[in-house]
């Protein structure tokens, strides 16, 4: 019977978790549209989530773009299709790798930081203290992070797209013998508006996922230092998985060209 009890408990836990996440999401979203708004905190979070993620996102985008060019060249040269390298790099970066790589890097950086900070505030009763000072913790802590991440991620991805394409350009011109101006012309010729916008919309969704799961896990952490550690880990793991799952669904449903 223990086996069935285990399955039952796991099922109940799973749905309880989904329910908690849903109510948390709802109160966060309703906090976005109802005053008061904390503009100064939003600006602070834009700096932390957006600006300070630039180096890590830029570097990963550069190397990803370079590697993409090298690999596509290997594949394309088997069919004599080397000329398509710029176009495939463009599509790969803007539609797929720009948002996903930036999303995963920001998930590692930001979701962890948010969960650790809010988790520590939870276990040291700072969140309860906010309530006793007539301040709604959702509006004060969650809303600025959520809005900042949704704004910052598309900007980060737009920058990552440019740097990634530049990475592909550098690899192609230095290692593969492409002519620089021909490479750029090919890139511009195959550039489609929808490639970029679909990537930016994905980025906004990923930003929402990152901030939401960082805040959610922090908010529900308990049990001191260890609890905060667990919350941080699950924030990164769950937001990364959800980013990849959402990416699959978005690509399938919305942006299948």
């Amino acid at each position, binding site marked *: 019977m223990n086996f069935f009890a285990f399955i039952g408990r796991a099922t109940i836990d799973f749905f309880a978790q989904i329910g908690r996440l849903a109510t948390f999401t709802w109160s966060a979203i309703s906090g976005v549209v109802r005053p008061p708004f904390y503009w100064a905190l939003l600006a602070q979070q834009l700096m932390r989530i957006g600006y300070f993620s630039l180096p890590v996102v830029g570097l990963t985008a550069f190397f990803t773009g370079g590697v993409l060019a090298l690999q596509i060249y290997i594949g394309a040269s088997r069919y004599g299709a080397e000329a398509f390298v710029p176009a495939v790099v463009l599509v790969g970066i803007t539609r797929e790798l720009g948002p996903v790589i930036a999303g995963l890097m920001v998930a590692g950086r930001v979701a962890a930081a948010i969960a650790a900070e809010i988790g520590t*505030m939870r276990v*040291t*009763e*700072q969140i*309860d*203290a*906010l*309530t*006793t*000072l*007539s*301040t*709604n913790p959702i509006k*004060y802590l969650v809303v600025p992070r959520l809005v900042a991440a949704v704004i910052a991620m598309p900007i980060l991805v737009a920058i990552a797209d440019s740097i990634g394409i530049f990475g592909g350009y550098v690899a192609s011109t230095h290692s593969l013998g492409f002519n620089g101006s021909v490479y750029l012309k090919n890139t511009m010729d195959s550039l489609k508006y929808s490639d970029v916008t679909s990537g930016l919309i994905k980025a906004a969704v990923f930003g929402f996922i990152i901030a939401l799961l960082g805040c959610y896990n922090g908010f529900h952490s308990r049990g001191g230092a260890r609890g905060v550690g667990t919350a941080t880990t699950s924030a990164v793991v769950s937001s990364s998985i959800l980013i990849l799952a959402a990416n699959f669904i978005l690509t399938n449903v919305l942006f299948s060209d």
Partner: protein
Amino acid sequence: MAMGPPKLELRGVKKSFGSKVVLDGIDLSLDAGKSLVVIGGSGTGKSVMIKSVLGIIRPDAGEIYVDGQNVTRLSGRARERYLRKFGMLFQNAALFDSLTVWENVAFGLIQGHGMRRAKAKQIAIEKLAKVGLGEEVANLSPAELSGGMQKRVGLARAIAAEPEIIFFDEPTTGLDPIMADVINDLIVDTVKAIGVTALSITHDMASARKISDRIAMIYKGKIIWDGPTAEIDNCGNPYVDQFIHGRAEGPIKMEVRG
């Protein structure tokens, strides 16, 4: 004041977490301007009781009245307005570590009452002076302060918005006996000076005797004794007797597994 409704009243408040019953029908009332201390061992539901009054935890059953008004199921904006009547000193001060000392003290004034920062800072410095802290600590971060000083800042924050009711959650825990007594004196002074109603929870009997007009004892989620502080030594309740004398033997058995 004796004729009006009690400042704060709990009627049959119950709360369970899973199968664990924490509050099993708490009845407690507190008159305006008085100081009540609830004593009880660790894990007897003292903190849960206070958090129920503040609405941080929702009770499963029972009613909470403030100034004769039922506040048990307030939510949203009404609850934020209701919470302006309260101040709370947390066990480990719970200062916001991302803000400076004065911003902590002024937090309720700026966020809860919409006061201008310059004016709020001035009030914060006044309140810090009331708890014996000079202007030089105002711009420090809470992490730079000792435990005793953090408690003082927490006290200044609790009284900053001039609440009608203040909760003290284990005000002396983790402090050396002298600092504990300093905090006790500060509590007595501030409570008397602004005439607030105080509800404290503690297991420190020296502190309880010093800061209370009345003492109530909580055991297994129920109030088992309630009376004037002066009578606690002759109350004849074996549970209270065991607790205030700190004996291992008696009717209260320590549950090793909580």
